[in-house]
């Protein structure tokens, strides 16, 4: 039994809009990652997965606000800590973040090594510049990044290089948990592969102890992560191992998501392109019952009224739907 790196219990966060309305973009999310493991989170844009990434950092600034729940990193609960403590002792060292738009993630007018200096000194002001530069150099060499990029401004780097530099900077302090928010979606296929390879490589070498990988392409996660969760309208609707989720999705939404992208991967049958009709619900007034009922072709009237708990099945798996697993499997089989 390996160590639990990150455990989240019932985390709820909200956006407060200009008109003082609360929007619960992350609603009672619980998850768990063990050392050396990675977790994928999938969902359409607007389903709350990026907000979940921000919320997991335990460091909130407007319009995002903390509501309730616990975030426990390596046995330490950070949700009760003072913001400045979180900043100094958690961010970067315990938990780190790779943003969605790496293209613009770096301050355009600061040289890379200067920025690395800022990051290190924010946690340990006594570090001297020479040591930091040496450390940065050795890390860049280990990760196969050109050393001259350290002395450049972000604007002088190519897109793929920028993304890899961002990954190197995020992990410079060897965080226990790395949260990568669609780190590859804006890149071309070659750069995408390099980024994913780099992330796996860092797990293997122990620069990071665990990882959360967020994407809107569920099938992509099969290659990258050990476990997968599917998110819809601020809630987790299904979780399981990567293999189970890709080949045997139970929740109608996971299934739709799986089908909506055509990926000719080995071992997978060719899927028809089947986009899910409709858009995620307005979270200012979430639906009373199942949040997916509006778009679900298997929905029955009772779906709209009964709010649903996460139901566990087959060991570690879980899903959130009014129909039984057996019923859904039968329906799916019948369709094909």
């Amino acid at each position, binding site marked *: 039994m390996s160590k639990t790196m990150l455990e989240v219990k019932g985390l709820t966060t909200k956006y407060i809009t200009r008109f003082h309305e609360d929007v619960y973009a992350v609603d009672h999310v619980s998850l768990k990652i063990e050392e050396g493991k990675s977790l994928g989170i999938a969902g359409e844009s607007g389903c709350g997965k990026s907000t979940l990434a921000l919320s997991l*950092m335990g*460091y909130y*600034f407007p319009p995002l606000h903390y509501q309730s729940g616990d975030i426990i990193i390596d046995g330490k609960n950070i949700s009760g800590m003072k913001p400045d403590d979180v*900043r*100094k002792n*958690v*961010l*970067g*060292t315990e938990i*780190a*973040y790779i*943003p969605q*738009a790496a*293209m*613009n*993630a*770096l*301050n*355009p*007018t*600061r040289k890379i090594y200067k920025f690395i200096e*800022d*990051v290190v000194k*924010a*946690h340990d002001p006594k570090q001297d510049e020479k040591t930091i530069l040496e450390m940065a150099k050795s890390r860049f060499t280990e990760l196969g990044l050109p050393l001259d990029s350290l002395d450049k*401004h972000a*604007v*002088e780097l190519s897109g793929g290089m920028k993304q890899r530099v*961002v990954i190197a*900077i*995020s992990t410079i302090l060897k965080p226990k948990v790395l949260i990568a928010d669609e780190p590859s979606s804006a890149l071309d296929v070659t750069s995408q592969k390099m980024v994913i390879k780099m992330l796996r490589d860092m797990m293997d070498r122990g620069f990071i102890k665990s990882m959360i990988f967020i994407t809107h392409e569920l099938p992509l996660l099969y290659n990258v992560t050990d476990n997968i969760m599917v998110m819809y309208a601020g809630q987790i609707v299904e979780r399981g191992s990567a293999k189970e989720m890709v080949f045997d999705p139970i929740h109608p939404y996971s299934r739709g998501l799986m089908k909506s992208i055509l990926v000719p991967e080995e071992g997978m049958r060719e899927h028809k392109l089947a986009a899910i009709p409709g858009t995620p619900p307005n979270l200012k007034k979430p639906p009373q019952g199942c949040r997916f009922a509006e778009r679900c072709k298997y929905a029955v009237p009772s779906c709209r009224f009964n709010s649903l708990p996460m139901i566990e099945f087959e060991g570690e798996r879980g899903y959130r739907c009014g129909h039984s697993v057996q019923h859904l499997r039968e329906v799916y089989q019948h369709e094909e």
Partner: protein
Amino acid sequence: MKGYRKYFTKKVIWFAITFVVALALNFILPRLMPADPVAAITGRLVSGSSDATAAAKVYEHYQEEFGTNKPMLEQFWIYIKNLFSGNMGTSFSQYPRSVNEIISSAIWWTICLQLPAIIVGWLIGNLLGALAAYIRKGFDKVLMPLSLFLSSIPAFGMAVILLVFFAVNLKVAPVSGAYGFDMIPNLSWKFIGSVISHYQLPFWSIVLISIGGQAVGMRSMSIYELNADYVKYARFLGIKDRKIVGYVFRNAMLPQVTGLALSIGTMIGGALVAEIIFSYPGLGSVMYSAVTAADYPLISATTLIITIMVLIVTFLLDLVYALIDPRVKAAQFD
């Protein structure tokens, strides 16, 4: 540094072309008009003035010096030649003073007044704009409309208001001129003191005017930068807010340098008119008296000098900007 040299050469060529265009416009525009303004003016002078022979002499002198009776192209050639030998002709209204003499005594007053005033206004405006963007809430709610209102007051209006309030009513500052009217410029403490006290009102009126516009621009720019992705990323790396605010303001401030370069032409226009209100002996007042006295060579020379000044300042700002902002470096130096 090789890239910079290329950029520099490109800029030099570009400004040289602009300079030639400005020269040509300065030469052609008055001559494109239905009547030759010089002839028209001297004609008016001859018929209206009691000193008709003097006016005729002025005109003859001018004709000889600038060859106004020769073909256009040759005139332009003479104009350029005169200009480069540093001869801008003889003033009609202050004959026989040369235009060079009049302008060289006025230009330093203008430079010493406007350059510091615009720079100080720029700095204060940017600071206030940055603060408004950072603090938001009450400070912003008050400062924004105030800056907007300040920037809406015309420069001459601000000059008049300051003049009436401080010089006429409170009598804490002199009403007009650049130094006591009974003084002859010298290097005594008394003279310097007088210059400083005369300097205050024109200076602050220009500063106040530039603050408003700069503050509004800087605020928008800072808000835009505060929402940038790199701010969020830096925060999540645990970097202190104070440091991040430093990033943001540096990044927002840099484009304001270009903003200054682009708007300096407009600002100078307003500031020159403000000079008239204070009878400050700079180019603005020279231009005013030249227009009133229909002194064509003087007007033409003042406009040219102002254009050249603006060109030089813009050129320098462009060069400095490229050095301090790596974003331009990346875009321009390849």
